[in-house]
């Protein structure tokens, strides 16, 4: 029997909003797909594009970046800077032939547990449709 493809998604969630939102989704016992592996960062502005490309190299099929809503950033401007960076990066990936839906960005506040679950469901389904990321996976051969 062929196994169903389960996408592997890395989530970079900001400490102050999205991570707390994910926490709320958990404590409120909202069901959402287990495909997201969360990495806590202090701010979405901390997410260097090198993290995204490295994740895609090392086995992630998609990357989700979560930050505070515009204007709510704990560091005032980190999410705005991340938004610019990701806009450029997504276009660059699309241009090289990697579906830009593999890199997603979202604003989730600490009070939006439901929205967090919805976003994870949507991203997981989108990436499940895209299939495994095989463009430039790192081969660990020695």
């Amino acid at each position, binding site marked *: 029997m062929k196994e169903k493809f389960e996408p592997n998604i890395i989530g970079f969630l900001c400490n102050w909003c999205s991570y707390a939102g994910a926490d709320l989704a958990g404590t409120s016992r909202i069901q959402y797909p287990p495909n997201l592996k969360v990495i806590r960062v202090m701010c979405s502005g901390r997410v260097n594009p090198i993290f995204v490309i490295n994740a895609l190299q090392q086995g992630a099929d998609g990357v989700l970046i979560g930050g505070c809503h515009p204007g709510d950033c704990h560091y005032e401007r980190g999410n*705005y800077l991340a*938004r610019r960076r990701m806009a450029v990066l997504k276009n*660059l990936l699309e241009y090289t032939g990697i*579906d830009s839906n593999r890199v997603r960005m979202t604003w989730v506040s600490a009070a939006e547990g439901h929205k967090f679950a919805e976003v994870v469901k949507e991203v997981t389904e989108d990436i499940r449709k895209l299939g495994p990321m095989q463009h*430039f996976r790192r081969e660990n051969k020695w």
Partner: protein
Amino acid sequence: MVDEKTLRDAVKKTVGRKDVKYVVGYDKGTTGFQAAPTFAYEEKDAEKFVFNPTCVNNLAVYPMLEDKPPLRKGEEPDTRKIGIVLKGCDSRAIVQIIQEKGLKREDVVIIGIPCTGVIDPKKLKVKFPGQHKSVEVKYDNDKFAVTVDGKTQKFSKDELMPEKCKECEYPTPIIHDILIGKEIKGVKKPDYKEIEGFEKKSLDDKWKNWEKEFDKCIRCYACRQACPMCYCKECMVEILDPQWVRRSVNLSENTAWNLLRAFHLAGRCISCGECERSCPMDIPLMKLNKKITKDIHEMFDYKAGVDAEAKPLLAMFKPDDPEEFIL
């Protein structure tokens, strides 16, 4: 046409100044097929300076490449200026470096040359394969005149110019201390037709194309060394802990390197084409850079290397930046 005598006089005068360490410019090169960067430390060195269509290198890399060894006890830092001979496109690199505060305006003396277009050495090589004899390349009104063995051949500019010259917006250096000859007004506009055409292809076609190109890469990092904007003290590919990009040459690491190199030039690339010229494997790196240049122009209405007072693109934001991709 650039009068070489005026250029040499300007170099002499600059090198003669007490507060100038040296002047970087072009000399004829070994055969004359491609001008080589050269340095003038004294006034007599200025005699070897030339300017002809083969002066394609971007000399703006030199002030950033210079080693600054730690000072001995009681030693004063050398704060003398560096003189550079710059074409219009090259001057944008200096503007961008000043904008990023890599250099101060008073650190450099710019000898600006209004340029009517240079020759792409790769295109010239195709016309004269295996040529080792001495060559003379000159401007001849609207053409390039190449003289080998006393025989002169004329080529139209479109035939030999690199892509960057065909759409040059700033033929006259944006900032300069001395200008050789008359100012030239830029009339050409960047042409994004090729990029737009490529964007319309399917994802598979695009990846197949880039897979082929990235697979060629031998990771010599010539693109980085030739680039005037790549002057990080420690490049991200050389960081060992954590090692983001491995040193092995394979498709995965090559793709990571090429994408990240292009991304690090977002809002900084001044389209001088040095990366592509120096690439020994002929990877069309400017296609990546140009795509980003086009995107940031459309999305953020930003152009790199024009205004030294502006803020760097990725260090600022507007509340109404595009965000239709955000969930």
